[in-house]
């Protein structure tokens, strides 16, 4: 019976999001830009004018031209094609580790809030530790430990960012645990696991959505930064951070090649932030519950 109530919540949440996208221009802008980036990433091999890895030393650091709309980099590779392919890495790194981190955080938060006691104490102290650690430094340490590769960067970002989710889900679980529908389910003999996942979790989804839209831009910036520092994606991968770093020594002679990938980062990240702000406003009443 309370599933109905929850379905209603999800419905109204969707309605609110739809209404928000119609009235909030910034959020709508963000959604459109993100959609374009996703399309470009999916269709990168179709929309890219050149092979992003094709080296053409005769055309090093070429200017913007009809042939190369965004010029060529220090290896003569087409910058626009590399930016298109770079969208794949940024989106995958933005989305997947954030989702994994949220899943980890949700599971830990549910267990922590539902069972309480010693296990709660341990999980929350772990969360304190992860949260007290500046994430960039933790990522550096993990990358040192596991070795530099995109996959390890992926793991590092997933392992680092669960703290906020765990704390938030725990707080919501604590309050939901006392609600009548949970008591009723428990009285009916529903198992703990089923209560957590079928009765408590659906109520946390609006909050999780907001956390996700805030985590994604963080992760995209982290990937770009770590790749720029040389502890993320490895050459010749088309990663925006790495592209800036590869071409920064030509900043004064051919600034565009180092600057362009950064514009892509800015555009994608600010779009996620716009959308996240809009979502937060739209779903606020659900979260304060």
């Amino acid at each position, binding site marked *: 019976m309370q599933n109905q109530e929850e379905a209603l919540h999800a419905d109204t949440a969707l309605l609110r999001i739809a209404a928000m996208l119609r009235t909030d221009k*910034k959020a709508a802008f963000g959604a459109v830009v993100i959609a374009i980036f996703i399309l470009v990433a999916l269709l990168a091999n179709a929309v890219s004018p050149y092979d992003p890895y094709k080296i053409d030393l005769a055309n090093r650091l070429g200017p913007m031209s009809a042939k190369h709309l965004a010029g060529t980099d220090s290896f003569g590779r087409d910058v626009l094609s590399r930016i298109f392919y770079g969208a794949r890495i940024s989106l995958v790194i933005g989305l997947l580790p954030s989702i994994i981190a949220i899943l980890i955080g949700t599971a830990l938060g549910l267990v922590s809030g539902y069972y309480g006691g010693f296990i709660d104490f341990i999980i929350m*102290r*772990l969360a*304190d*530790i992860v949260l*007290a*650690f*500046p*994430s*960039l*430094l933790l990522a*550096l*340490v*993990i*990358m*040192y*430990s*596991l070795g530099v590769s995109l996959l390890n960067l992926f793991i590092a970002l997933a392992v680092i960012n669960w703290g906020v989710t765990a704390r938030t889900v725990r707080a919501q679980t604590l309050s939901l645990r006392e609600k009548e529908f949970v008591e009723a389910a428990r009285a009916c003999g529903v198992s703990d696991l089923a209560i957590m996942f079928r009765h408590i979790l659906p109520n946390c989804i609006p909050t999780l959505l907001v956390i996700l839209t805030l985590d994604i*831009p963080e992760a995209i*910036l982290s990937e*770009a*930064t770590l790749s*720029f*520092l*040389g*502890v993320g994606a490895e050459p010749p991968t088309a990663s925006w*951070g790495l592209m*800036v*770093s590869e071409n*920064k020594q030509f*900043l*004064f002679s051919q*600034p565009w090649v*180092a*600057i362009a990938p*950064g514009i892509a*980062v*800015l555009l994608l*990240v*600010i779009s996620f*932030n*716009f959308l996240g*702000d809009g979502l937060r406003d739209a779903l606020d009443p659900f979260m304060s519950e």
Partner: protein
Amino acid sequence: MLKYIVSRILVMVPILLGIVLAIFFLLNVLPGDPVSLMMKDKIKPDVIDNLRERMRLNDPWYVRFAVYVANALKGDLGYSYRYHREVKDLIMGAFPNTVKLAFAALAISWGIGIPTGIIAAVRKGKLSDSVLMTFSLAGVSMPIFWIGLLMQYIFAYKLGALPTSGFSTLKHLILPAFVLGWSSSGGIARMVRANMLEVMKHDYIRTARSKGLGETRVVFGHALRNSMLPVVTMMASQVSWLLSGAVVTESIFAIPGLGRISVDAITNRDMPLLQGTVIFTTVLIMLSNLIADIAYGFLDPRIRYQ
């Protein structure tokens, strides 16, 4: 108040220990044996054994951890493979540079962020609010390395007004501090605005207006102090942010600070140096957390008079 401070410190200690353990585990236990990693198979077995003995690698990891913590408490953070110097000395050499950068950046970020947030809140819904907040969000959304390069190009190369890199004069500090400070001012502005709007909804703001106070007095006399309380707690996370950002900023502007050392340590696989800088930085952040908590206590009479 004293009780409050002591309880804050007591909460900190186990977290700090947990962090040191996590770093130690990641850097010492997980990657395997640093001696065989360093030496490959070029060296005679007895030399390796000797070295292993000297580095206590034959002991179980928890013994090594205890030894490390005990030494660290005495100020001994180990010996850098790469620079052949005490890690402590390297850190102490780099620390002042990072402090200078961080404080200058903090001043810039507050100087930009707080007024921006206040103005946006007071003009909520107006065009100036929208413009200021879009700028703030853009600041949050730009990668620091990118702003850094952009500023180098504009101010150092095109205008020739400021040096590109190095850290010898005050002039060298301007660009990096501005880059780091600007990028963190967006978060401050958003926070101040949100708090201010929240506080302006409170009943006591209505009371203040009902006394006949002008809007300026209402904002500065009543709203500001209350909306600055959470900003003070944010100062701690900001220090964390600035020290992370310093890693990138110092790399771009070639500033010999803590961040630069830790990146160097990774590229040179200099484990003791990396471990030392990361732990040192974390301690700094936890200390600033503590200071923020205490400052919060002083600003909020509800805590001060506990």
